[in-house]
């Protein structure tokens, strides 16, 4: 099996080389182009065979394979055999190669006369992935050090056992594979000076890549929201910026393509925008997998190591050098009509600015993500510069003005007329503007009633972005009505793509603003079994009902709690997954995932405040409080003011250096309950002959709970290093409910995620709009293909070239 998989990869590699050679030589013989295509299908078959082999090994639990042993287990749900396929580095390269070969096969069949020029370029990009696969093979035997082959594998990280992980990575890698096509078309255009056809054929692929990547990022965001429990869906982590930067350049590409198609301008920019998504996607891969971000990243994959690392780096540099090098070399020959950007109220200007803004956004995110690399290089020249990464705030703040300008352009741009057609229809825009202002007033009123902590500058900034986004939404909705007149030909229905995407972008921006403005959080909620607890200023009452089974035994266990809204209209039981899971064959650990209650107006998001320590079998809490420190348990706040040794006993210790028979110590605490503070001093007595300290007698607190003083560390835990633990001079206290049998309790964080659905809906609309546009551009390319493709014009006068052109021209006829 292992041998077969390895063999398949090598056959693929050789077939790929042969295919490339055939295509390159096909200029002279069309049979060779057919051979090139045939060989590419051999590549496809061998990559499919390799993927099939890995799949079979996973399904049949071949733990003699290192990859299968490390990423799967018998005990797994069969659904998660899929994420096992791509959980490791090797598997993810195989997934990449898988999509690349499928996309390549589709490309070879659909690209018509461009095939023998675009396929060699595409083949080289695939060669790069397949050679990584050959070096970092998923088909290595497990080194058992002479022991028998294990009967069970390590399994998957439980966080990856989620349905989204079944579809998110394949979608993302499909995006990476499709964005390679515009790159390949641009490179072949510059080599063979194919200025007429490349864009027509590359644009549908660019739109597909844009849609697929958008979908993939949304899935990744939803996975984080559902599994990780920090409540967000985007954190500007390198693995998120990774697809985001190419995505922005893809946006730049589809906008530049419009200008290039219609006005013939921006020739070089369009080529650059076709090159950059691929280059930045490679850059992201290098950054997250080479160990370059080792000190900084959350998700950084394990270091690829040695040869694979170099291949990645050289591949990236080669792609950049080839792409940009060709562009510089051909700069003078790229046909481009001079731009007419001087009129800010022209459509040309709007398109140009959109490209500029997407590029700015990509640069901000790309530079932020590269901070560790940049500071490392700076450090080589000037040792006083420290290695550094950037704070998450950088992305939010730096991208804000860009997002604001994008929102303005989003509303105005599509309504602007091309330069020679004069002024835009400003009446409709006034309506849109009026509507946006009305919505913004509603937004501000809502932010008051929801009691958000935003005031002054922060609120102003959010209102500004909200208003421009709402304006963009209405303006594009008006546009949607205009371009959908009844009784038109079929192809015209597909012209709504742009407007739909623009509406999606506006909805997404509105969603983000609402989320940031209206979020309402209750960070410290204590739920005791059977006891109703009011949360979010009384908006809901929550009662913990118990577990569905037993978290120590059942991996599908969940915590059940009842949620009742203030008006009693909502009354339901929510489940929070909570169970002991083994991490990759290691020790068992508790995994809790947030409980999300979906509403049309926004989610109720309940996540565990803490791990196992705060899940109690009895309602006894034992806060350890530093001297002068504060601890909170439910409604109680306990401040450890001081401790008082019994004066007689203390004097005895001073005089004799020995412990007295009985040594009473008072722990003086201030307990605050519902705004009222009372001082208590429970007494704990140490006995010389019994080193175990019994608890002090319990004191009754307001609210019915009992307080005891259970002992303290009076000295330093680490005498040599007095600052070591900072836990010295801490007292242990006991707090428990007065009555009832032992019950379960846990602490959690409850928050609202208002209008989060807008984020998902907006992204979906962006994706759908992209797909609709793709459909339209494919149809147009078909119409154009009905007439024979014009061969690249050769202006050079070398005889060899001229004969080739003649021959090619003859074949077309």
């Amino acid at each position: 099996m292992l041998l077969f998989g390895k063999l398949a990869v090598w056959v693929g590699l050789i077939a790929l080389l042969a295919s490339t050679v055939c295509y390159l030589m096909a200029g002279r013989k069309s049979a060779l182009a057919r051979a090139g295509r045939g060989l590419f299908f051999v590549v496809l078959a061998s990559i499919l065979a390799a993927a099939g082999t890995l799949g079979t090994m996973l399904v049949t639990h071949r733990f003699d394979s290192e990859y299968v042993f490390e990423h799967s287990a018998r005990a797994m749900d069969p659904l998660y055999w899929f994420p096992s396929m791509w959980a490791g580095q090797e598997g993810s390269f195989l997934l990449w190669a898988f999509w690349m070969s499928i996309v390549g096969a589709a490309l070879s069949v659909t690209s018509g006369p461009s095939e023998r020029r675009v396929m060699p370029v595409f083949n080289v990009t695939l060669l790069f992935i397949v050679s990584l696969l050959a070096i970092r093979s998923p088909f290595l035997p497990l080194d058992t050090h002479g022991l028998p082959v294990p009967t069970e594998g390590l399994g998957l990280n439980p966080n990856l056992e989620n349905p989204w992980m079944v579809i998110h990575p394949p979608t993302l890698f499909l995006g990476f594979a499709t964005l390679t096509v515009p790159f390949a078309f641009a490179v072949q255009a510059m080599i063979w000076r194919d200025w007429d056809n490349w864009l027509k054929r590359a644009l549908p692929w660019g739109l597909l890549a844009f849609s697929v990547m958008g979908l993939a990022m949304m899935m990744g965001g939803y996975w984080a929201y559902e599994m990780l429990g920090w409540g967000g869906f985007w954190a500007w982590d390198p693995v998120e910026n990774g697809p985001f930067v190419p995505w922005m350049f893809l946006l730049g590409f589809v906008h530049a393509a419009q200008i290039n198609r219609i006005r013939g301008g921006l020739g070089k920019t369009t080529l650059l925008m076709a090159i950059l998504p691929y280059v930045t996607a490679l850059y992201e891969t290098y950054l997250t997998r080479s160990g370059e971000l080792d000190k900084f990243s959350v998700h950084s994959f394990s270091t690829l190591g040695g040869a694979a690392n170099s291949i990645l780096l050289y591949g990236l540099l080669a792609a950049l050098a080839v792409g940009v090098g060709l562009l510089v070399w051909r700069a003078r020959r790229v046909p481009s009509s001079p731009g007419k950007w001087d009129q800010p109220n022209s459509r040309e200007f709007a398109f140009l600015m959109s490209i500029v803004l997407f590029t700015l956004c990509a640069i901000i995110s790309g530079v932020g993500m590269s901070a560790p690399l940049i500071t490392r290089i700076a450090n080589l020249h000037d040792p006083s510069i420290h290695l550094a990464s950037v704070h998450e705030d950088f992305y939010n703040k730096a991208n804000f003005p860009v997002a604001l300008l994008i929102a303005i352009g989003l509303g105005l741009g599509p309504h602007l007329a091309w330069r020679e057609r004069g002024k835009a229809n400003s009446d409709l825009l006034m309506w849109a503007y009026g509507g946006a202002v009305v919505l913004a007033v509603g937004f501000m009123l809502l932010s008051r009633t929801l009691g958000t902590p935003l005031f002054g500058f922060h609120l102003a900034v959010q209102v500004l972005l909200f208003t421009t986004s709402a304006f963009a939404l209405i303006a594009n909705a008006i546009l949607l009505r205009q371009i959908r007149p009844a009784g038109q030909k079929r192809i015209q229905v597909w012209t709504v793509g742009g407007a739909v995407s623009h509406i999606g972008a506006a909805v997404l921006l509105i969603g983000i603003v609402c989320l940031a403005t209206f979020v309402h959080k209750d960070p410290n909620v204590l739920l005791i079994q059977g006891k109703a607890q009011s949360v979010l200023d009384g908006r809901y009452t929550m009662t913990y009902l118990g577990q569905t089974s037993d978290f120590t035994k059942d991996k599908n266990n969940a915590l059940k709690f009842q949620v009742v809204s203030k008006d009693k209209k909502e009354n339901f039981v929510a489940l929070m997954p909570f169970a002991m899971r083994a991490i990759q064959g290691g020790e068992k650990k508790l995994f809790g995932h947030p409980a999300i209650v979906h509403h049309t107006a926004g989610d109720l998001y309940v996540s565990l405040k803490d791990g196992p320590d705060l899940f109690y079998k009895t309602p006894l809490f034992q806060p350890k409080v530093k001297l002068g420190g504060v601890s909170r348990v439910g409604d109680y706040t306990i401040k450890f003011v001081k401790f008082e040794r019994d004066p007689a006993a203390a004097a005895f210790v001073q005089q004799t250096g020995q412990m007295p028979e009985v040594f009473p110590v008072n722990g003086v605490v201030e307990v605050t309950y519902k705004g009222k503070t009372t001082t208590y001093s429970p007494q704990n007595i140490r006995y010389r002959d019994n080193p175990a300290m019994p608890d002090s007698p319990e004191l009754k607190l307001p609210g019915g709970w009992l307080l005891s003083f259970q002992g303290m560390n009076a000295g330093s835990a680490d005498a040599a290093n007095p600052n070591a633990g900072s836990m010295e001079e801490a007292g242990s206290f006991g707090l428990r409910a007065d009555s009832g049998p032992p019950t379960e309790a846990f602490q959690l964080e409850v928050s609202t995620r208002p209008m989060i659905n807008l984020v998902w809906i907006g992204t979906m609309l962006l994706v759908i709009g992209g797909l609709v546009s793709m459909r339209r551009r494919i149809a147009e390319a078909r119409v154009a293909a009905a007439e024979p493709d014009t061969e690249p014009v050769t202006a050079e006068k070398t005889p060899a070239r001229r004969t080739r052109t003649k021959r090619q021209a003859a074949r077309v006829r």
Partner: protein
Amino acid sequence: MRPTGLIIGVAIIIACLVFSAKLFKTSLINYVPFAEAREATGQTVQIMGAPAAGTMAYDSNEHALHFALLDESGQRMPVVFKGPKPDDLDTAMTKATKITAQGSYSPSTATFVAENLLVKCPSKYKGSNDNGERSYGKA
């Protein structure tokens, strides 16, 4: 014909670039030696070191994890991490070879107050997805 469009466009680009460049400089979280972290009070920095044996203690009601880091020269830095305690924190921490803490030094308690932790474990399983690396904090 006045090139109004060009002027507006260039002005926007320059303004955005200048703003982001300034922000970039102030948003950098520097990797510094312990001594420098002590001087840079109130400034967010990152420090790295090995956890000192036997110093790990978790205060489950204050949600605070106390430990000390040792740098290569054996210097010691007490660290407190306040934040939700992740499920596997203690095992990850006690096994950790290197811990990166992001935060700032508080002179009043002579402690480094960490907002984020990045814990590196010796990778038991070569090539495993997460590199034995876990991060804690809001990211």
